[in-house]
């Protein structure tokens, strides 16, 4: 998708290891989001950011931390990965559609498997 990339695309890691996922945008958007997608749960918000060093928790933030030291990068860290964190992770940016309304543009996702 235009202007937003996630890395890595796939990762297998062992339980207890730290993992960092990266989201990079090229269009200077203020708002960035991390969601996880699991069967039967749809997309659930983990954390989001509304500017450099400004972040807030979503509905499933336990076990995750984020950092945003530059406008273009939003990092998601699993401090000690668990099997329950096996999921597909999506990053999104918020773009103004018209007036004060906004919609999301999503990255292609990171498939994380914790074994």
């Amino acid at each position, binding site marked *: 998708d235009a202007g937003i990339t996630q890395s890595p695309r796939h990762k297998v890691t062992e339980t207890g290891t730290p993992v960092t996922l990266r989201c990079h945008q090229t269009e200077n958007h203020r708002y960035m989001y991390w969601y996880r997608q699991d069967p039967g749960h749809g997309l*659930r*918000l983990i954390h989001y950011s509304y500017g450099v060093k400004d972040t807030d928790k979503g509905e499933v933030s336990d076990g995750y931390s984020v950092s945003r030291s530059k406008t273009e990068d939003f990092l998601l860290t699993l401090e000690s990965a668990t099997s329950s964190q096996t999921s597909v992770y999506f990053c999104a940016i918020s773009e103004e559609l018209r007036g004060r309304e906004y919609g999301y543009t999503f*990255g292609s996702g990171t498939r994380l498997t914790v074994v």
Partner: protein
Amino acid sequence: SQQGEEDPQALSIQEGENATMNCSYKTSINNLQWYRQNSGRGLVHLILIRSNEREKHSGRLRVTLDTSKKSSSLLITASRAADTASYFCATAPQGAQKLVFGQGTRLTINP
């Protein structure tokens, strides 16, 4: 818990038929949006309807919104095989700069 719930969870129809998906939500919203997700890909924005609008069209898509019932529907007319995907509704709660997604409807168009 999820703001939006979608119905049905899965829908299979013949090419050329119309597909209707429904979404219900719980709180007051600024707008409601629909997204499509092809297998293995990120979600793509389809259409947005404001809380003061009742119906909106975009190509073969028709969205309705009933704020009194806190529900919305997405109609895809004259379906094509390329419409096979999962469709998600997302609500923008008042006062929040974040979307809340439903669980999605998996649509299969059979040739």
